[in-house]
């Protein structure tokens, strides 16, 4: 067997096992680490296909930035708040497994029947070298044929960023439940607070438009009496035996 086939099978196996680990692991951070492993192997497969630029971009953008932020969120989530596979009712579990098996069969059938295994597209090594390399090739196609899609994607990302900033404004995420405005619970019992008049989805109401009050300065605690268990002289042995 030639070396590249062996290496491909190793990479593919690790990738699939990591993807399985994502689904199986109990801890969300472990699942995130398995996703990183899977994407890293996908980048290695890209390198084997001769798409080094795509591999580097996959690692830099997807693994190095997006998954870092996903891991941020996963680290701050209490694992007890997440739904568990084994806590589902038997009907749900059976239907879930059945749907998963159907999906697997469909994808397998699609791969085996309708792909062009063994044929080459028009990005052959000669064509790529003629344009001057991978980066040049991707750049030429991206900024001429697909420039509209490129601009639309950048607009979508901008909308996402603005939405995230608006959702995280301090007025919305108050420390106490009765200070939150306009938030929606995730349907979890701990997400709602019975003390607030909540809407049908657990929303907390937006306040009427009013000018913001100035934040009050917290008052300091008065002097508290210091109670010590042992006499301070008992804490040191310097000069004593």
């Amino acid at each position, binding site marked *: 067997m030639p070396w590249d086939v062996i290496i491909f099978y190793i990479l593919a196996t690790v990738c699939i096992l990591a993807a399985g680990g994502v689904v199986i692991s109990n801890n969300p*951070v472990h699942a995130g*680490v398995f996703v990183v492993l899977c994407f890293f192997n996908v980048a290695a497969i890209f390198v084997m296909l001769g798409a*080094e630029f795509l591999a*580097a971009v996959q690692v830099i953008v997807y693994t190095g930035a997006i998954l870092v932020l996903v*891991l941020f969120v996963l*680290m701050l989530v209490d694992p007890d708040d997440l739904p568990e596979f084994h806590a589902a009712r038997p009907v749900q579990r059976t239907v879930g497994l059945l749907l998963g098996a159907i999906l697997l069969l469909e994808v397998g059938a699609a791969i085996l029947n309708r792909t062009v295994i063994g044929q080459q597209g028009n990005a052959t090594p000669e064509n790529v070298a003629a344009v001057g*390399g991978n*980066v040049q090739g991707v750049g030429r196609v991206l900024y001429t044929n697909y420039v509209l899609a490129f601009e639309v994607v950048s607009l979508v990302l901008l909308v996402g960023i603005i939405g995230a900033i608006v959702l995280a404004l301090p007025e919305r995420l108050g420390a106490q439940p009765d200070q939150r405005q306009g938030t929606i619970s995730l349907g979890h019992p701990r997400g709602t607070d019975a003390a607030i008049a909540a809407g049908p989805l657990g929303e907390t109401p937006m306040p009427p438009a009013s000018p913001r009050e100035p934040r009050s300065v917290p008052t300091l605690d008065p002097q508290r009496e210091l109670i010590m268990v042992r006499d301070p002289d008992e804490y040191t042995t310097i000069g004593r035996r």
Partner: protein
Amino acid sequence: MIEAASQPLWLTFIVAFILMNVLLVGMAYMTYFERKVMAAMQDRMGPTRTGPKGLLQPLADGIKLLGKEDLIPASADKIVFYFAPLIVFVTAIVRVAVIPFGGTIELFGREINLFVTDLNVGALFLLAFGSLGVYGIILGAYASANRYSLLGGLRAAAQVVSYEIVLGLSLVGVFLLSGSLSIRDILLQQQVDLQIGPLTLPNWFILSQPLAFVIFLIAGVAETNRAPFDLPEAETELVSGFHTEYSAFRFSFYFLGEYINMIIVSLFAATLFLGGVDGPGSDRYWGMGVIWLLVKVIFFLFFYVWLRTTLPRFRYDQLMGIAWKVLLPLALINIVVTAFIRLVGNGQL
């Protein structure tokens, strides 16, 4: 990609092994260099007792760290705790594979390349493994089961991700001028001459891209979590931040990984902006080229230590504000101006 001599695989392994060992020894003596230079700037002596002039201090530090008790918090996530420092260390060392220490030389009757590999996306390889290094920080912070470590780790990760963007964008100017992402290509393009009026200077990109150089240096210092951007690991802020719970050799992996990152960023800056192995006499003797590269790297490492000794650290919101509100717009302006000038120069506008 420039044509490199195709050499047998075992020869590439030998070159890689030698480079890796040189890097590791350099990292160990970087600790000594930092202590001595910091001491000199603070009007004291630094290590003087272990060996002549304290030169065996890194050895003593290594032995001490290997002998310390390896404490693992009881509620720590053991597997992640074991692997997190390794990620930082390994992703830092791997980056030396794309840095050229010269061209192709004749030695012992064979043609040997003075670099491990010449990827045609070499600069992106460096950035990619730099962004993988951040996982060592956040996973280590998470696995410590210590909320202050977690805070420090998240801060460090946010900082590294932000400055990584600035780093990449500052390099786009260099890529525009050189037309290639391969580091060896960029190196070879800096070895031609540039006519500026009556002067004939080498075409080092620090002359054509001064703003990008400054932005790259600042972002490079922030990427490696060094002062003045070291709030995530500052001793006075969060005990030791993300590596609080690590002791003995695990801590040294973080510590040494940071130093290797410093060396790699210095090598990167020297190769991309200061011409790397270019210098008087380097086209005749390959040894002179390596010496010139060493001089430039030591200059950047001195700059790192100088910053640490003199500047107070930034507060976290100031740090993030600098990245997003100052350096990012400047890098984008640099790209636009460079592209404009290149198009005008090529007559394509």
